[in-house]
Structures are given as C-alpha cells and as structure tokens.
C-alpha cells in the first residue's frame, strides 16, 4: 500500500518535473453576483492579481485596501485584481455588504467550499498570486505583514517592465492622503 503510494508520488513528481510551467489553471469561477466566469476572461486585457481572502481573516482585510489601490491605479494598463472569497455559503451575505461598504472596485469571486483554493495550491490566507497576460504565475505571496504591499507593488512594476507596459509609478503614502480627501478610506 505504502509502496504503491510512494510510486504514485514519484510518478507525479516526475511528471511535474517534465512538464512544469507555473501557469494558472483556467478555472471556472462563481462571481459574487451568482454568475460564472473563467480565469482567462480576466486576462484578456492584461495581467492580474488573484487574492484569496475571507471576512474572518484580519491580515486579509488589511491587505485588501492596497489591492484596491493597485486595481484603480493600474486599470488603464489592463491590470485587474480578482479577490476570491473563501467564506462558506453560511456567511455569504456578509461578503457582499463588506465589499460594498468598503467601496472596493475590483472583481470578487466566491469559493465557498475551497475547491478553487485547492486547485490554485493556496495554503495560507491571504495568498496573493500575480499572473501575466499569458497566464504564467510570476509572483506568489503567502500571508500578510504590514509592508508586504511594497513587495507586491515591486512585483507589479517588474511584470510591467518585462512586458513593456507603460505605467505611472504609484506612491502609496500619497495615495493614502488622496483617499482621505475623498472620504473613501480613513488613513491620515
């Protein structure tokens, strides 16, 4: 039994060595409004960040305000943020009100029984995956510590530079101040 299992693992590892490309699977996603979309639908215009979060996850919430800033700042380049919520259907209605109240403008999908999370190999919450237009994963980050947003921003710059996409640099501190004036976020 154990020998057979080890054989299977070796086999799969061999296959993974032979064919491995860090590409995001073109999974079907259920969006917050109940309709369906595929991952590649979001890659038509440019690169994207896929972020896994939940309403009970405090670090996720801390990070989400920066993802919203990234989404809004780089949207002219075709860049998008897709936040995949992993709350169970037991708390689905709170997800909608949370997203609306915070005025997040990025797309939100739901993964209530963690099947998308498993297929995207997500182990920690939050997990942030930066994907280029071809679907290749160029950056993956697990968890969130204050300051991680700068690393994510650098990864976005790196991807934009590599793909010759012109963009305007983002000053996170300045952006925060701008948000106070608009009243959308409280950070002064």
């Amino acid at each position, binding site marked *: 039994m154990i020998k057979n299992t080890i054989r*299977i693992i070796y086999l799969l590892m061999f296959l993974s060595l032979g064919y491995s490309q860090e590409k995001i699977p073109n999974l079907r996603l259920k969006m917050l409004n109940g309709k369906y979309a595929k991952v590649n639908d979001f890659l038509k215009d440019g690169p994207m960040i896929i972020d896994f979060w939940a309403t009970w996850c405090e670090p996720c919430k801390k990070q989400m305000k920066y993802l919203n800033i990234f989404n809004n700042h780089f949207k002219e380049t075709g860049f998008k943020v897709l936040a995949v919520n992993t709350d169970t259907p037991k*708390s689905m209605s709170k997800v909608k009100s949370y997203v609306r109240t915070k005025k997040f403008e990025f797309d939100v999908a739901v993964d209530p029984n963690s*099947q998308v999370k498993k297929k995207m190999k997500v182990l920690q919450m939050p997990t942030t995956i930066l994907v280029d237009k071809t679907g290749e994963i160029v950056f993956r980050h697990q968890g969130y510590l204050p300051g991680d947003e700068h690393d994510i921003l650098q990864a976005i710059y790196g991807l934009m530079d590599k793909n010759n996409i012109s963009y305007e640099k983002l000053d996170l501190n300045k952006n925060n101040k701008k948000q106070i004036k608009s009243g959308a976020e409280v950070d002064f």
Partner: protein
Amino acid sequence: MLKLIFNKQIIVSFILILSNSDLFSQITAGGNSILKFGESKNEFHYSEVLLNMNLSNDYLETWFQFEYSKPPEIGMSINGLRKFRIDYSDGPFELSVGDIYKIWGRGLILNQFDDQDVNLDNGYRGLSFSIIKDNYTIDLISGISNIHRISQDYWQNIDQESRKPNHLSKHSMFGSDLEFFQGPFSLGLSFLQSRENHPINNPITMMADSINVIHRINGLRAGYEGGRLASYLELSGKNTLLSQSESQIYKENFNPYNGFSLFGNINYYFQSQLLDGWSLTMEYKNYNTTKLNTSDKDNFVKNYDMNLIFTQPPTVLREHSSVFLARLIPQVNFSDEVGYQFSLVGPIMGIGYFTLNYQAASRTNLWGKTYPDTVNAILSTKWESDSAVTVLPFSEKSGLPYNELYLEMEGYIKNIRYQFGFGITNKIPEYHSSYNSGKNGVWDNGEAFDDLNGNNIYDIGENFTDLYSIVNEKIDNKTVTAITIPSLLNYNLGNGWSIDLKYEFQKIKSGTKYYNSLSSDEVFYDSNGNGVWDIAELFEDSNGDGIWNQAEETWYDLWQSGLIPDEQLYYYDTDGDGLFSEGEYFTDADGNGMWNPSENLIDEDGDEIWDDSEYLEDLNNDGVWTKSGVYEDRYQSNFYSNDSKSGLSIPEDFQNNHLISLGIGKSPYWSLSLTVESSSTYEYGPLKNSVVNPLESFLGNIIDLNNKWIALEFMVNINSNTRLDLMYGTQRGGIICSNGICRYVEPFDDGFKLALSTVF
C-alpha cells in the same frame, strides 16, 4: 463497479496514458505540502503530512491528496492516498470523477467541504456532470459519502480524547440541481436522495447495530441582485423513511419527522448623502427538519432523521476573530433552530468604520415534561412540545435561547490600524427536567376501595388503591452571560517593520440554576408513633455529643493523603514536631471544637453514611425527610478558586479572562508573537490545569503565573513559496467552533507545534 473505477493502479495507468496523449501537450503541474508536528507533556501528540498534487491543461485537471499521519491532530490515521479527483471540462460541459465537493444555493440541501479543524469531511466519491451556460446551469451528482463523526451517544469505540471518530454513516446519494439566470434574477430547483446505512445502539441488546434510512430533500431558491437591494430566499422540504425491513423496535423507538428549512437574507445599500457607504444586512433562518427535546438535541445516533450532514445551511451568526467571542458561539443545530441576525455597517465621519451586529436564536419548539396524573411519574414522563411553527426565536429557557449584541469600530489613525469591539452574550445551552412521584398512604377522594360494610363510604381498615399523588419536580438549566471587549492595534514602523498589540477582556458568568419542589410532604413509616421521622442506624456515641461523628482528620492525615503539599507543612505543624499536637489544624466535622475519633456505626444500608432509620419514600433523593414546598431554588457557579490555606474550593460567580498578544514583524520575512492568556478562576469540567513550562518559569520572575497559558509563536517565510510556523508553550483547551460546528479541544501543555507549508 465504483471499486474498479477507483482502483489506484487504474488511476496510475490513466495518468500515464493521458500524459502521453495530445491532451497533455500543454500540461501544468504543481502541488503543495503541509507538515504538522506537535508534542506536549499532557500526551497530546500528532504527526501528519498532507501532500496535494495537481496536474492540469486546458481540458483536464487532476488532484491527488496523500496523507501520512500517526496520529493526525484530529481524525483517523491515514497512510496513503486520501483523496483524488479528475475534472474534464470542454466549453459548457464539466465531468468530474473522484472525491467531489458541491454546494447548491446556500447549502440547505447540499454543502460539502473538508474542514480539518472540526474533522468534518462530508464530500462524496463518485461522478458529477454539469452544464454551465450564461443563463442556466444543470448539475447531476451520484456517489457514496462515508462520513466519520465523533459521538458520545454511540457507545462503540469511544475515544476519551475526542480526537478519533467512532461513528461512520454511509450515504449512497444522487441528485440534480438546476439554476436559471435572467437579468438581476435567479431561480434554482434541487432534488437529492440519500440511502443511508446508519450505525445505532440496539435499544434491547445495547450492542452496535445499523439501520437503513432513506432521506429525500427538495428545494427551491430565488435571488435578486439590484443596485441598492439584494435579496435571497431558499426553501427545502425533507422526508425521512425507515426501511420497511427494519426491526419494529426502531420504528417504535423513534418516529422520523418530515419538515422544512427556510433561509432568507436582504442586503440594503444606502446611497443618500448622509448614509453614503452604509449597508444593512438582515438574515433569517428557520430550520425545522426534526423535533428534538432538550436532552436529545445533539443525539444524531438515535435521532437518525437529523443525520443529513451534507446539508449545511447558513449559521446566521457572526464569525468572530476575537478568541473569547469565538468561544461563546453556540453549536448550530441545522435540523432544529430558528433565528435572525441584522448587521449595520458604515463609515463614521472619517474616523473609521462602525459595525452593529445583533443575532438571536433558539430551538424551534418549547419543551416540557408531562405525565398522566395518579400514575408513577418516573416511569411515565415524556417530553412534549408545541408542534406549531414559530417565526421568531424563543426567550424561554426550554427553547435554549441565545443572543449577542456586538459593536465594533475599526480604522486607521496615521500608521496605526485600530479595532475596538464590545460584545454582550447571553445563552442557555442546556435545560433538563425530571419528575418523581409517590403515594401518600391514605385514602383520598376518588380512590377505589373495598366497601366491606356496603355503606358507600371509605372506612378505616378497608383496602383501597393508593394512587400516586405526591410530585417532586426538578428542573435545571445552564446559563452563560458575558461581556467581551476585544481590541487590536497595529503600528507600521516603516521599512517593513511593524508591531501588533492584541488585548481581549472578558467577564463571564456561567453556572447552573436549580429548581426543586415537592407538592406534599414525603411519607415515612412512623415506627415509634412519635409523629416525627427518627434516625435509625445504631452508633456508639463515644464523645456523648448525641451525633454520630465520622473520623475527623488531622493535618497529618491530610498530608499523608497528599492534600497538603510539603511546602505548606510549616503552616500546619506549628510546633514542628512532625506530629499532630493539641491546637493544630483538624477537620472539625461536627463543629464541636474537639477532634473526634471515628465512632462505630451499624451501617444498615451500607452507604457509609449514618442514615435516618424509619422507612422513607425519599422522592427527591436527598436522604432526609422533606416537607412540601420549593426547597431548592439556587444557582451554582461553574467557577471556583482555591483557598491556599485550606486547599478548599471557593465558588466564584464571575470569571475574568485576559488575553494579551504582543507581536513584531519584519515584512516579508518573519514575525514573532508572545501570547499570554489568564483566568481569574478555575472551571469545573474537562479543562485541566496547566503544566508550567520553562518559558512560564522564566516569565514567572516578572508576572504571577497562576492560571495562565503562555505561548511563543514564530513565523518565517523561507521563500515566497515556503513558510515555517513554530509554537512553543501552553495553549488553553476548550470548545472551538467552525461554521456552526463545534468540538472540544484538549489543552496543549508545555509542548511545541511545527507546521511547514510548501508550494511547488
């Protein structure tokens, strides 16, 4: 057939064939692994490795999960392939084979997941076929779901640590789900049938047995997604049948109930200038698929009609990130619960976001015990409830009410993120009732008699039928009331450095209320005719105090039996001669101020207690004759403190809990946190006292360690794909809940935990 399909060699061959086919020309492969290890001085050990492997291309996705554990943190030990699935998709068509997890609507009919925190895996192994188009979806499923659970109500293979499941129900299920979309509207229809083989205790032989049950559920749901308003409503009807071939005893023992479940929610987003950004969410649940009295409320073994574990509807409860508030969330009964929740959230004058959340729930019926008059109550009482459907939760105790009000403010001030909460919780988690009755020994009006002299009047000496007329009523209920204040401060120092301070306070009152009454005086046989109940057992009154004295114990006796520790001896042995001397401490059982040796007792009933002797029908079982009336209406707290001098437990009404967590982190590399939890009292129940570890010994130089749990946690991101978590110290045990399902977790004493997660 299924066994053939799921044979591992065939799976391997399948992968090999496909890997050489055109389908796999653009294959993506990867996976992740989690290694978990824990060891503690209270024998809470675990070691497990979970390995997930994924292979995919544009059409096919495969997932294999291997587990190697001995033992796992919770659940059955597995060494080998645990789960697998192959998904094929082409355009709107999807076909899956293997271990499948599905959700229809909000889970009133089907909601499957693998939640390792509470050890619940309710997925199925089988087939699934779906068509997903823009304006409709069709989903067909068929397979077998083997669900392992832990239950003390199933008397076989009970695990004392509550880590290993002992109840396995097997569901052979099939079903279909249709969903239509039109503009902002959606409509869904579902049907599911499960043929269950259900392990049960045979009520006659008390041995393990099993029965075959059929569950059928039909459901309807509708949703609306508008700009200002979103709403959702789902209704399902359940029918449970016991197979005709099953023994009559099971049909008599429990009659399955056929009922309904209802869930609805409304989200309203304010758009006026004054309330811009505010939202109101209201949720309602009425889960009415079985009727369970308060003693049987969680007994899914006997009440087989509630064992639809693949239906996991919304909890209609807030999931708290606060440690103390999360401990107060009740276990949701998805078969028998009514409740609502409303939540108002919005920004306040540029200083942050405010949340007001109120939630209430109870059972769907009020229960009471009834019995026919004039018969023996102890043999004939039974639970009865009002069968009417209630709309709002009850506040009466037999409805097991629960409510929580929670207020929160969170936001940023410069580089500081703050979060302050305030919660008030009330709940009645348990309610018990019992009756006992007796005869009064005299003829009462209405009692039949042998009218020997034919005068139609009862005369002394005539035989009569003495009916049961004295009633003893006992009711007790647990009650919990708490105020909780969680807070969190996070300061961003810049250059990736940050510090976290988390503080939680909770004042909690928890105990049991007892009510005990007797309708008439207890009856006794007045052997000496003096009109009072006399003591009977003979004793040799050696000290002449007229009372039988048990042997009183000196401090020397207590020290010998380990009740007085060595380090406290100086306090008791005041002259230091190592022996009990006059004036030194003893247990003055009779309060006469003198140390009495044990007096000889002729213990007639062998209970080692000196008893009154005249025959007594002791209805309330307190060992003495009792007059009628309410003689016990008291409250017993669940908390106590230890008196350091006497070693005796002193009841305490309230418990104050504190949790402080101080952390520092350097993005994106590492973080370190020290968590100290303390409690002002001990608690009756399965919680064990903590073992002092070296970390606590060190900190003991700074703080008092009495009743504290201290742990140090370190996280390091080895690289962007690998993370290591280490914990050293002590963690308090207790109830943990995840999505309405709760389990008891053993305390983790003086040990370390390691978790290594890798994505490849």
